């Protein structure tokens, strides 16, 4: 805050000066931004180095490891598509954690919203077999948003009106969501033909949303990018977003200045759940074509990791989701070429998480970034 206030004068006075002064001005102006890139970047490098050591302990060459990780994640056009396909649902589920975080809430139930979103979207598609595909698809998006949105709103409402911790309630709602899904898929909504894999009926090939032309990446990526961008604008460039951040900073102050905190919380929870709900809808409309237990693939849980790594910045979520998508895309190659167990990818994710969380302590403590001139 204080450095921001000093900015205009400093920038006007120092900018045209000699190189050292210019650098100082640059640091002063962009120090925080540089910090936001440099610290997670260093944490990532540290995590990769540690993982390399871990792999070396198993007698594998860490350089091979880095090469295969690069090749599997970004080395070829196929690898890129693999990475982006995996990143798409993560962007959306990460928003489910990142948006409520603006209000100081820790929501970790994106998986539940994804499942309920998928179930709602499938139900809508199945009751309107007569409608043209575009109408069905639009209805599926709406149903996904509403289903997932209401699911997380439930956590928000429990917190605001009943004093229930939203972290616990959202997590427990994941298991309830999965139970509801299994109950319906194995009962009321079961396709009698799905003998050994209980599933709903298929939504029909015509209603599938398919891939982005020229690629194998489904449209979920575009939904994710748009949702992330819209969330960024909402949080940082609207009165609503400003109110949310004020309430997140100090809820009593927000109440004193007359902000409708309840409404803010419920709205944000709805949007957050809606994002995860779209992820579920996409899984149905672009991948599975129906609802069954396969949808509980853990995207909601990986999304939590993505949100925390991105420090809950909606735009930061995009590169982090691509990074984690890449790690998971390269996981197969690590298994096949280096003979590492599947769990090694989880170990890497864990190491990254620990490094990034630990690096939080560094913010504001790196003296040269403070721009003292």
């Amino acid at each position, binding site marked *: 805050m204080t450095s921001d206030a000093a900015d205009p004068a400093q920038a006007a006075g120092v900018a045209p000066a000699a190189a050292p002064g210019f650098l100082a001005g640059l640091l002063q102006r962009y120090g925080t931004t540089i910090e936001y890139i440099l610290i997670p970047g260093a944490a990532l490098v540290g995590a990769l180095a540690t993982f390399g050591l871990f792999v070396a302990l198993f007698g594998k060459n860490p350089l091979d490891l880095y090469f295969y990780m690069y090749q599997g994640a970004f080395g070829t056009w196929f690898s890129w598509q*693999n990475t982006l396909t995996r990143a798409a649902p993560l962007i959306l589920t990460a928003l489910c954690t990142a948006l409520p975080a603006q209000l100081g809430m820790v929501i970790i139930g994106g998986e539940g919203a994804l499942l309920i979103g998928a179930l709602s979207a499938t139900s809508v598609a199945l009751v309107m077999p007569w409608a043209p595909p575009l109408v069905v698809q639009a209805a599926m998006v709406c149903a996904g948003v509403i289903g997932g949105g209401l699911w997380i709103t439930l956590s928000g409402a429990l917190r605001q009106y009943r004093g229930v911790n939203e972290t616990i309630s959202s997590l427990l709602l994941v298991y309830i969501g999965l139970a509801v899904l299994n109950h319906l898929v194995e009962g009321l909504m079961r396709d009698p033909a799905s003998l050994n894999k209980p599933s709903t009926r298929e939504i029909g090939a015509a209603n599938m949303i398919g891939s982005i032309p020229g690629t*194998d990446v489904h449209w979920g990526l575009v939904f994710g990018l748009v949702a992330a961008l819209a969330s960024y604008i909402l949080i940082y460039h609207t009165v609503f977003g400003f109110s949310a951040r004020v309430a997140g900073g100090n809820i009593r102050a927000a109440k004193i200045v007359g902000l409708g905190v309840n409404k803010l919380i419920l709205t944000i929870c709805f949007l957050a759940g809606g994002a995860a709900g779209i992820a579920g809808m996409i899984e149905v409309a672009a991948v599975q074509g129906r609802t069954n237990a396969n949808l509980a693939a853990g995207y909601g849980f990986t999304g939590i990791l993505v949100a925390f790594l991105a420090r809950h910045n909606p735009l930061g979520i995009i590169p982090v989701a691509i990074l984690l998508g890449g790690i998971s895309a390269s996981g197969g190659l690590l298994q096949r070429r280096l003979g590492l167990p599947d769990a090694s990818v989880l170990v890497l994710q864990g190491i990254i998480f620990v490094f990034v969380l630990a690096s939080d302590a560094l913010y504001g403590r790196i003296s040269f970034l403070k721009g003292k001139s």
Partner: protein
Amino acid sequence: MEFGRISRRHLLQGGAALTLGSAFGAGGARAADTTIGFIYVGSRDDYGYNQAHAQGAAALKKIAGLKVVEEEKVPETDAVEKTIESMINLDGASLLFPTSFGYYNPHMIKMAKKFPKLRFEHCGGLWSDTDPKNAGSYFGYIDEAQYISGIVAGYTSKSGKIGFVAAKPIPQVLRNINAFALGAKLANPKTTTQVIFTGDWSMPVKEAEATNSLIDQGVDVLTCHVDGPKTMVENAARRGAMVCGYHVNQSPLAPKAYLTGAEWNWEALYPKFVKMIAAGEAIPNFYRGGLKEGVVKTSPYGEAVSAEARKHADEIKAKFLSTEGYSIFKGGLMNNKGKTVIAAGTDRGQKDPELEKMDYLVKGVLGATS
């Protein structure tokens, strides 16, 4: 220096990509240079479903000229499509075994259409005429082996109460429970089989709870149909109960308590498939077999199995292996609600499609399908 290594690898991969297609395309006279991809939904050392397939893969690794690549814990989402493509693009795989049931539709079908020159073999037996011709599905009548286990269990149980820890009340599982219970009743008509459904394929905590609760109710022989029988086998053995295994031989986990078990015999089937391809024979798109065809087998008897049990079990096994065969499900068969499900005089042989829709538990089984 580092760059040299990379480019050399690229060269090798390029070479692998070039040999792709020629391996099977040209009459299949040569099995050399063939890469086979195996994909598992769980870990390949789970003492269960995935390990059974991994043992099949291990049998292929011993054959000269074959290269096997494996990937475990691949979810039944588009991740499996990407794994298949990655095995094809980066490893040059030309024969793929996506082994989990949920990989089939839409994922494997989609990949089979995308790579029409490559061969896809799926475990689960779902192939129908509308599916691509380069895709196939195989499965085994493992209820025959369960029937043998049931006989052994029926003789061994002192309380006459047998326990079955099961995942979901779907036809494949119900058929195993019923075959096991009928086998047990053949040995001792008074035997009851208590079943507990855990609700999913891999629920170790619930499986342990079910095992304990069954033993608390007086059950002294247990078996299961879940992805990893390890939990049930170890817990039951610790409590002093006897066990029959499933998927693979679990006797190393409980040498004293292990009676016998129903095992897959993929280590025989997979090399057979590869030999058929190499000889230019077509693998039937829909492939099934039981004990006689060597697709399933029973574990060697444990020391606790009595001579009487061995004799009876061996007799029935010989019937399964004989040319006239043996039917487990024949009339009049009643379900556990007192309704006749197979009328007297009707003999449902193994290949009867009616058995694939099984939705009941036979008389003598305690439990409900819903």
